[in-house]
């Protein structure tokens, strides 16, 4: 067997030009496909980071059932004890209270629906990027009870400027519709359309008072150390929630708050897989062609080999092994270049600002940092391996069944 491999390897290099051309085609195919998957990975990362940084944080705590049915009545009754417990958990880097509800903002001439969020300006600014994304005016100050900041698209729609008065209407805890007059302090741009067009923030205490909520809050948002390493943090928080409250609370990671994020990757990868099939078919064709030509070139030699006693399966293996080695060398080079490309782009970032609107409606950044997962790499290699075998089967089969006499005499 080893001899067969040695012979195949040497055979491969006998016709350098042909080998080189096919290796280029495999190289290009593999590089292209892995680049596509790397892009998808970077894209998903971008969406996840965006969601986390602009609003969701790493973990959210609510009254049970709130995520499915966000009603003001489903609130955390006694947040202070919970906060005290949370502060004892070492993995909790930041935590903030929030009240969230849907309301209406009206000016003298305009009206718009909004998702109004009562925030604690200080801790919130350390959890989300809103404080750093102000386009106009200023972020809320801790003691500002009458200020409101809006997403810039929402502000545009309402045609408000900094300092303008705006009326917020929302349904309170007691089911009575409440209204409050607020002054626009600033506008923000997170890059996610859903937020910039819809969200507004005001002071938590002011909102509690307006909605007659007392000390209750809708959610507590938590920032840990690493968005992808929440497996230890989450149970600790669940425990803290259990101790501090009689109420049943739900503790959700970002992935549980927005399962759509994961599903997006599935969708994008699907598109890639279809093209993967097409590209690999193109490569398979090239390989099959090469092996057919290789066989015909050496048909007399194969005939002599068989005449000297080489068994049919060995001839078969010669062809298949040559095809596989040809392919896998191309794959190795292709993956090598992919790795370097991804390393470079992963560092520098890929700028797609020309489609920023589409990206913001999907909730992704304009600059993407691609990366390759281990799975991407071995999948590409494995599929190439199988494809090489598949492509060479027919030619190898024909070669194995050559009649020595006819082959030697072939002109």
């Amino acid at each position: 067997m080893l001899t067969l491999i040695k012979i195949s390897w040497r055979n491969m290099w006998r016709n350098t030009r042909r080998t080189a051309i096919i290796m280029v085609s495999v190289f290009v195919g593999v590089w292209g496909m892995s680049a596509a998957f790397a892009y998808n990975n970077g894209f998903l990362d971008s969406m996840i980071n965006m969601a986390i940084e602009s609003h969701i944080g790493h973990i959210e705590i609510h009254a049970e059932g709130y995520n499915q049915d966000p009603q003001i009545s489903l609130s955390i009754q006694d947040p202070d004890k919970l906060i005290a417990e949370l502060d004892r958990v070492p993995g909790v880097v930041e935590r903030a209270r929030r009240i969230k509800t849907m309301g209406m903002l009206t000016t003298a001439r305009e009206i718009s629906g909004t998702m109004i969020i009562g925030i604690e300006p200080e801790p919130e600014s350390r959890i989300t990027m809103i404080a750093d994304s102000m386009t106009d005016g200023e972020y809320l100050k801790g003691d500002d009870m009458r200020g409101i900041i809006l997403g810039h698209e929402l502000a545009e729609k309402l045609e408000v400027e900094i300092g303008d008065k705006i009326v917020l209407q929302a349904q309170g805890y007691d089911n009575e519709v409440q209204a409050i007059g607020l002054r626009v302090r600033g506008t923000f741009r997170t890059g996610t359309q859903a937020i910039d067009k819809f969200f507004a923030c005001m002071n938590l205490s002011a909102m509690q008072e307006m909605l007659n909520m007392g000390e209750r809050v809708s959610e507590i948002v938590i920032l840990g150390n690493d968005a992808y390493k929440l497996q230890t943090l989450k149970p600790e928080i669940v425990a803290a929630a259990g101790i501090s409250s009689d109420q049943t609370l739900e503790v959700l990671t970002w992935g549980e708050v927005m399962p759509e994020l994961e599903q997006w990757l599935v969708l994008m990868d699907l598109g890639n897989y279809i093209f993967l099939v097409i590209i690999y078919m193109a490569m398979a064709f090239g390989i099959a062609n090469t092996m057919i030509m290789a066989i015909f070139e050496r048909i007399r030699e194969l005939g002599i080999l068989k005449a000297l006693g080489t068994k049919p399966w060995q001839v078969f293996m010669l062809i298949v092994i040559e095809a596989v080695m040809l392919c896998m060398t191309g794959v190795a080079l292709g993956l090598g270049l992919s790795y370097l490309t991804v390393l470079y782009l992963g560092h520098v970032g890929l700028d797609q600002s020309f489609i920023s609107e589409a990206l913001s409606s999907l909730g992704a950044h304009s600059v993407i940092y691609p990366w390759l997962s281990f799975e991407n790499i071995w999948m590409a290699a494995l599929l190439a391996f199988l494809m090489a075998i598949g492509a060479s089967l027919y030619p190898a089969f024909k070669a194995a069944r050559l009649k020595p006499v006819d082959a030697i005499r072939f002109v």
Partner: protein
Amino acid sequence: MVFLKIAWRDIWRYKLRSGLTIAAVAFATFLVLFSATFSRGGHEQMIVSGIKMQHGHLQIHRTGHFDDPSVDKSFSLDPRLIELLNTDPAIAAWGERIRSEGQISHQNRTSIGSLMGIKPSMEIDLTVIDDRMSRGDFLKDGDTISAMIGEDMAKNLHADIGDELIISTMGYDHLPADKIFKIVGIYKVNSPDLDRNAVIMSLAGIRSLLYMPEELTEVSVLLNESRDLKHFMQRLEIIKSYGSLEIIPWQELIPDLVQFVAWDAAFGFIYLGFVVIIVACGVLMTILMSVLERFKEFGIMKALGTRPVWIFRLVMAESIIMALIGAAIGFATGLPVCLGFVERWGIDPASMGGEEMVETYAKFGIDTVMHTKVESWVVLATLAGVIIITVIMAFFPAMRAAKTSPVEAIRYI
């Protein structure tokens, strides 16, 4: 012209080589045709489903309404406009609408959303909403108290068929407006805007809510063919003389869809590029090998006085003829497949991925069955592309052939 005869004979002399080259070109043509038509089909589907949700191919508004929507910026339907909309052959359907925004409550739950007043009999052909009713019935003309909401809003409000909704908003002339509507239908069109944040009632209903006169805020138009859009818009220009109206095409109504399609198209193009490179390698290989093998032949020809440029032309001619044959075969096999997918079957990748996939697709409002779209320019472009690539790939081998040394060739014999 003798070289053409020789080229033709050469092709048949070297059956294997020619066969391989022709096969490579045929395969390339097939793949390119397939990928390109699929890509176009996908985009067309995205656009059409986006358009048929609610916006239509274009809308007519009162000037200034699009940039700054307000119920006060309404217009009345000039009879000449009605005539035009009813008779123009490019139009598949059109609808009269009034749009606003407000607060929607059911018992003690509130939501906010857009309010859309429609004329049900016109909307049936205009949007897909009537096909996507999950519970209850679609609206009927003239019904002033009924409304339809999306599944997501129904869930948020804990409301069902027969329940009452209180809608409050700012009406015409900035008067506060409140009215009670009864839910007669619940739909799911897979557009978050519609499913979660919209209430649809009849024109009569919304006029009574808003204290509005017999006017509209928008007219939505659906065409038979997307490509008629430009010409149709030109024909429509005349309505600007009927009053201060503006015409807004879907590209401005749904700009992120445009970018999304452009993004997908860019990717499709890149992939196609890769496919082309890979197959071009295959074509290069077969032609090159064939040329190198024939060095004796070329050598003798040169020894006999054939000029190098003629050998070059000979090889190029052979390659082009093989390309044409290959392309013909590629189209012969490819076109029926692509056309078949266009009408009848389509590929359903989601069902290949399982139950979960189908749900994921549904969530994003994407029709899971993928069709191709065969357009004549795509076919011509593929043909041209394949020929050009073969010519480029044949260039180097042809040069090599032309430079064959007669002395070496003779020595070999």
